[in-house]
C-alpha cells in the first residue's frame, strides 16, 4: 500500500463506505468431485470411508460420498488456476498492509455436500476495525460472512471469517520514522 494512502487512511470512512457490501453470488468452477476430497483427506491422513469410498457412501444415509464439511468453501470457489478475472467486490477493501492471516473462523453446517452438488457462495463485509498486533501497531482486521448454497438454493453452510491484514516490518519502520 502506498505511503500516500497510509497518511490518508481513515478507518471510520472505510467503515462507512464498505460495511454491508456484498460480492456477487458466484458458482464454483466444478461440481463436487472425488479427487479434491481425496487430496484434502491425504493432507491430514484421513481415511474416513464416507469421504473416500463410493461403496461406503452409497450404503450410508447420504447415498453417496460426501465432502468433509470444511470443504464447502473450496467447492464453492474456482481454485487458483486458471485465474479468473477479479470480480470480487471485496477484493479491494482498503487496508494498510497487504500481508494477510486468517484468524477466527466460525461455521454453521446445515446440510451435507454430496458428490455432484454444485455450490455457490456470496460474501458480505460485516466489520472492519483497527487493532494492533506485535508485527504492526496499525493492523487492520476484516470480518466477512459467507453463505454457501447448493444447486437447489438450499443453504449448505454459513461462515464468518476474521482476516488480519498487516504491513511488513520494513513498512512499519518506515511509517514510524515519518
Amino acid at each position, binding site marked *: 500500500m502506498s505511503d500516500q494512502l497510509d497518511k490518508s487512511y481513515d478507518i471510520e470512512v472505510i467503515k462507512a463506505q464498505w460495511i454491508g457490501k456484498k460480492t456477487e453470488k458466484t458458482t464454483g468452477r466444478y461440481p463436487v468431485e472425488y479427487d479434491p476430497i481425496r487430496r484434502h483427506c491425504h*493432507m491430514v491422513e*484421513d481415511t474416513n470411508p464416507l469421504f473416500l469410498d463410493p461403496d461406503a457412501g452409497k450404503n450410508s444415509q447420504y447415498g453417496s460420498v460426501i465432502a*468433509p464439511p470444511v470443504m464447502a468453501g473450496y467447492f464453492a470457489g474456482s481454485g487458483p488456476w486458471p485465474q479468473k478475472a477479479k470480480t470480487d467486490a471485496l477484493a479491494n477493501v482498503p487496508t494498510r498492509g497487504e500481508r494477510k492471516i486468517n484468524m477466527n473462523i466460525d461455521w454453521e453446517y446445515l446440510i451435507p455436500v454430496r458428490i455432484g452438488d454444485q455450490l455457490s457462495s456470496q460474501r458480505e463485509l460485516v466489520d472492519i476495525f483497527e487493532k494492533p498486533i506485535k508485527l504492526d501497531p496499525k493492523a487492520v482486521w476484516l470480518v466477512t460472512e459467507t453463505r454457501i448454497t447448493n444447486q437447489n438454493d438450499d443453504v449448505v453452510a454459513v461462515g464468518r471469517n476474521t482476516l488480519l491484514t498487516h504491513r511488513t516490518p520494513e513498512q512499519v519502520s518506515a511509517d514510524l520514522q515519518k
Partner: protein
Amino acid sequence: MTTVQTQLHWEDVKEGDKIPGYTLDLTWTKMVEQVSGSQDFYEVHHDPDFAREAGHEEIFYNTGFTQAALCRLLTDWMGKEGWIQNFSFQMRRMNIPEDHVQVKGVVTGTQVREDGKGAVTVDLWLENDRIGITTPAEATILLPLRES
C-alpha cells in the same frame, strides 16, 4: 492413525470425556501435501524467504490444513451418523515445519435439544511440542440417540 468407524451415541458421552486424538508430523513432504490438499498457494505457507520477509519465523501451515485436521478429529470420533453443526477455531499461533502436531479434544457439555437431537459441545485444539496449543476450537456435534 485411526479412522474410527464404530458409531458413537449421545448416551455414550459425558462431560469431561477426552476425544481420542492423533498426531501429524509436519515434515516437508507434509508441507507439500498441505498445498496440494488445500490448493492454497499463498507464499507465506510454502516460501521461507517470503514468510521471513513478512516478519514470520518460518512458513506456517494454512487455514485449510488446520481446519481439516480439527474436522478429522470430530468425524473420526462421531461416526457416520454424527453431524458437525457448528465449528469455530482461532489461528492464534503457528504450526511450522518440523513441528509434531497433536490434535486433541474434550467434551464440555451434553444436551438433548427440544427437537429431540442429542447435542454435544466440545473443545478441541491443535498443539505442538514447540509452543503448546496453537489453535483452540469449539464445536457442537449432533449424535444419534440409542432410544430413538
